[in-house]
C-alpha cells in the first residue's frame, strides 16, 4: 500500500513557476508520511495529484506499485480528507459516512454495519442522525475521517486536516489521529505547514519549498541534520549567524565554529543554531572564548527565553530551563560566556 511519486511536475496556467517541480519521494506502506512546507510550497498540489484531483504535467504516481498517473480519482482507491471538511450538508452523519459505500452499491444492511463500526472508531456513536451543521468543528473533521475510511482505502490523504481548528482541539485531534493510525495502519500522507504536527505524527517527513522537495528523511533526520539552509530555518526555531571562513574555522560575530569540510578561506557561511543548543556560563568562569550580554529575559512557565547580544551586532535567542538559569545566578544585563553545543553551517553558494 505504498505510494511512489516520481519526477512529478504540475504547472498552473499563469503561474510564474511550477506549483510542483520534479517531485520524487516514496511513502512506505503502513506509515505516516508528512508533506511539510510553508503555504505555496506545492505540497497540496502533490497530494491532489496523488488523489487524481490534479493532473500531472509530467512524472508518475504509483499506488502499491501500480501506475495510476492517468487513472480517474474514482478508481484510485484513496481516501481524502479536505481542509474545510467538505461534508455533504444535506446528508446526515450516517449518510456522509456511508456515501462511498452507497456509490459502490453495498446493501443497506452491510452499509449500516460498516457505518456503525466507523462511528465507533471516530468516537461519534449516537451522532449518526445529526446533520453536519449540528456538529462542532472537531466532530465534523472526525466525520470527514470516517467518510474517507469507510471504503477501506489503500491510502489515506489528509490535506491540512486540523488547520481550521483551534489550538486545543488541534492538539486533541492530533493525539486521536495517532491512535487511529495505530489501530488501522493505513498508509497515510499528511499535508501540513505545522512542523510540530509533522514531527509528532509522521515517521517520514518530506520538506517542500517553492514546488521542490528539499529533504526527505525521518522527523529526527530533518530536525538534526537539515540538508539545506531552508530546511534548517523552517524546521524548529534557529538563530542565523553570518560570517566567513578563516583557516578552517568559521568566524561568526565573535563566535568561532568548525567550518564545513572543504570550505575555502574567505567563503561566506551562515550557521543555524537552535535556541536550546546554546550553553551559557558566568563570564568570570570562562574568561577566554566568546562573550555576550543578556539583553532580554522572558520567563515562560518553567523555561526561560534569553536574548544575548554578541560582540558583533548579532543577537542569539537561547531557551533553557528556569532552574538552570537560577543555578547560574544570572540576570538581565550581565555578561556571559557563550558556547555552541551544536550548529549547522552552510557555505553561502549552497543557498537553496
Amino acid at each position, binding site marked *: 500500500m505504498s505510494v511512489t511519486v516520481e519526477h512529478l511536475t504540475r504547472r498552473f496556467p499563469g503561474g510564474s513557476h511550477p506549483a510542483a517541480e520534479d517531485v520524487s519521494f516514496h511513502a512506505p506502506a503502513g506509515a505516516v508520511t508528512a508533506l511539510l512546507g510553508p503555504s505555496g510550497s506545492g505540497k497540496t498540489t502533490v497530494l491532489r495529484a496523488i*488523489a*487524481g*484531483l490534479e493532473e500531472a504535467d509530467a512524472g508518475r504516481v504509483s499506488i502499491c506499485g501500480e501506475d495510476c498517473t492517468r487513472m*480517474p*480519482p*474514482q*478508481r*484510485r482507491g*484513496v*481516501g*481524502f480528507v*479536505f481542509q*474545510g471538511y*467538505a461534508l*455533504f*450538508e*444535506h*446528508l*446526515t452523519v450516517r449518510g456522509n459516512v456511508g*456515501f*462511498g459505500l452507497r*456509490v*459502490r452499491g453495498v446493501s443497506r444492511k452491510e452499509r449500516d454495519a460498516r457505518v456503525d463500526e466507523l462511528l465507533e472508531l471516530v468516537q461519534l456513536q449516537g451522532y449518526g442522525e*445529526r*446533520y453536519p*451543521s*449540528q456538529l462542532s468543528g472537531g466532530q465534523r473533521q472526525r466525520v470527514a475521517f470516517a*467518510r*474517507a475510511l469507510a*471504503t477501506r482505502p489503500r491510502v489515506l490523504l489528509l490535506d491540512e486536516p486540523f488547520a481550521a481548528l483551534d489550538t486545543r482541539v488541534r492538539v486533541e485531534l492530533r493525539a486521536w489521529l495517532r491512535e487511529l493510525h495505530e489501530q488501522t495502519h493505513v498508509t497515510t500522507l499528511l499535508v501540513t505547514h505545522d512542523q510540530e504536527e509533522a514531527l509528532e505524527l509522521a515517521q517520514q517527513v518530506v520538506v517542500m519549498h517553492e514546488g521542490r522537495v528539499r529533504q526527505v528523511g525521518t522527523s529526527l533526520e530533518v530536525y538534526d541534520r537539515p540538508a539545506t539552509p531552508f530546511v534548517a530555518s523552517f524546521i524548529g526555531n534557529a538563530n542565523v549567524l553570518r560570517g566567513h571562513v578563516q583557516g578552517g574555522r568559521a568566524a561568526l560575530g565573535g563566535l568561532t565554529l568548525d567550518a564545513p569540510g572543504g570550505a575555502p578561506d574567505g567563503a561566506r557561511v551562515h550557521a543555524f543554531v537552535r535556541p536550546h543548543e546554546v550553553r551559557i556560563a558566568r563570564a568570570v568562569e570562562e574568561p577566554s572564548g566568546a562573550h555576550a550580554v543578556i539583553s532580554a529575559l522572558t520567563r515562560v512557565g518553567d523555561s526561560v527565553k534569553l536574548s544575548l547580544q554578541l560582540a558583533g551586532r548579532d543577537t542569539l535567542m537561547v531557551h533553557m530551563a528556569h532552574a538552570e538559569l537560577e543555578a547560574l545566578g544570572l540576570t538581565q544585563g550581565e555578561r556571559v560566556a557563550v558556547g555552541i553545543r551544536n550548529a549547522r553551517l552552510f557555505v553561502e553558494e549552497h543557498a537553496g
Partner: protein
Amino acid sequence: MMEAALRSVPLRRRGGVLPGYGLALGFTVLYLGLLVLLPLGALVLKASTLSWEGFVAAVTGPRALAAYRLSFGASLVGALVNALFGPVVAWVLARYDFPGKALLDALVDLPFALPTSVAGIALTAVYSQNGWLGQHLAKWGLQVAFAPAGVALALTFVGLPFVVRSVQPVLQDLDPHLEEAAAVLGAGRLRTVAWVVLPALFPALLTGFALSFARALGEYGSVVFISGNMPLRTEIVPLLIVTRLEQYDEAGATAIGVVMLGASFLLLLVINALQARALRGRKR
C-alpha cells in the same frame, strides 16, 4: 425584602445585541400593511358586497373554472419548464468561461426588464401562423399562438430569470471540494450531480420555482397578445377579471380576485413549507 423588591423590577426587554428590533418590526408591519394588506382588504370587502350565492355563482361559472384551469395549469407548466432548464442555464453561467458570456448573462434578465406586452407581441409575431417559427410548426399541426401552449410559452418566458437568478449564486458559492470529495469516494459525474449538486441546489431551485410560478399567475401583458383570449379556451384569470370590470361587474371581478388570492397564498405557503423541510438540519 430588598432582594424581593429588586427581583420584582421588570427587566426591560431588549432586542438582544441587535438594536432597533421594535422600530424595524413596527415599520415592516406598517409598510406591508399599507402596501399589501390594505388593498387586499379592500378587495375582500368589495367581494363581500355579493351575496353568498352570488359569490359562488361568480367564482364557479364555467368561464371562471376554465380560466382557473388555464392560469394555474399554464403557470405550473411554465414554472416546471423553468425549474428544469433554468438550472442548466445557471450552471453554464456559473461554471464556464466563454466569449459572449456577459451578453448571455444580460439576456437572462431581459424578461425582467422588457415591458411584458412587448414580449407578448414579439412571441406572437414569431409563433403566429405566418410567423417564422409558427408557419413551420403549423405544418406539423402544432399551434402555439392563440392556443394554451402559447400561454404556457409566455409564462415560461417571464419566469425564466427567477429560477436562473435564484440558482446561479448558490452554484457559484458551492464548495468545489464537495464534488471532489464525491469523486474520490467513487461517484461518477452523473451521480455527483444527482447526489451532491442537486440536493445542494434544491432549496434555491424551489425558491426560483415559487417565484416563477407566482409571477406567472399574475402575468397579464404578455399573455393577452399570444393567447387570443377566447373564453373557455385561452382566457386567463387576470384577463377574465379585466373583462368583468369592463362589463361594470366590479363585485364579480373582485370575487374571482379573492379566489386567486386565496389559492396563490395557499400555494406559496405550501412551497415555503416544502423549502423549510428541504433546509431541515442544514442551518442551526
